[in-house]
């Protein structure tokens, strides 16, 4: 009970931290699909790509000025990509081009 009360009293502080420590955005890859078709993050935030398939993926973007490539990612692996610049990033898997995701980076 004392611990619960202490946590409750600290809640404003914890919530305040939330402004700078946002929950990690995780996009899963399963059955050769991204778990979502669109995510929105703020500049400087990161998106983690998890491979829950039994085959390799290769997540990348060739959106001008916002390019990145995770490179080949094996089953069970997870990779984090920072999105520092504002824009609309079209993300694909080069191995499975039907996998399509839009990452909106905006303040």
């Amino acid at each position, binding site marked *: 009970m004392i611990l619960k009360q202490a946590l409750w009293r600290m809640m404003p502080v914890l919530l305040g931290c939330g402004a700078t420590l946002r929950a990690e955005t995780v996009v899963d890859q399963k059955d050769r699909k991204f778990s979502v078709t669109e995510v929105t993050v703020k500049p400087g935030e990161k998106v983690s790509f998890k491979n829950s398939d039994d085959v390799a993926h290769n997540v990348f973007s060739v959106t001008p000025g916002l390019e990145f490539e995770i490179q080949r990612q094996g089953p069970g692996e997870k990779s984090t990509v920072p999105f520092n610049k504002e824009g609309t990033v079209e993300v694909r898997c080069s191995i*499975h081009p039907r996998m399509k995701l839009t990452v909106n980076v905006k303040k």
Partner: protein
Amino acid sequence: MPKAVGNGMKVLGRRSPTILNGAWTELLFWDGRAESLEEQALGPIAAPGEMNQDLDAMIATVKAIPEYGMLFAKAYPGEPVTAKTVGKAIATFERTIVSGQAPFDEWIAGREDAVSEDAKAGFDLFNGKAECSKCHTEWLLTDNGFHDIGVEGNDPGRAQHLHLQAMQSAFKTPTLRNVDRRAPYMHDGSEATLEQVIEFYDRGGKARRPSLAPEMKALHLTAPEKRQLVEFMKTLTSVDPAVTLPSMPR
């Protein structure tokens, strides 16, 4: 004929990919360079190594034949005869080339005697020990993806259009529907028979290079298992009505 023959009877670098079930395909050609059937349809006409035709001259030829004018006006009312409408017309024809119900489909639907016991064992291997279904998946038996499976040669494949290392020597996974009608196999026709294809995969491909797909590895299949896989693949062929070429106005 392992590889396509183009303008001046020149042998091209790749085998002609099938258009079977192209209606459900995106990123066409072995290297995925065409976004749609409409775009694909015009590529070989204009390619210098293939049909080597000037598209404007081709349109002028089509326009000079009155019957074509009537056919296009009926199919695309209000649209002039252009490369765009020609591409649409060819793509629409290509979308009619589809495979039908194969013995495998009848077996899946519940008719136990539609395929042999060897073919059933082959299907288990396809999904299990041989790991074929990692890429040859869903009803068309393709992931519509691009992989370097270790075919020898220096063709850059998909990397010619998407400059990523994993795309080096990567080619589009073909459908396995009606596959026993399409020998020889691979993007360059380098494997003459389905039996040779199974041998190729059993050794994990032939070329060893950084871009080789990690799924490619020695399978250690026994001789009966190889035979069962081939038996399974033969059940994917449907008996389809013959495609008769219409007599075209000249």
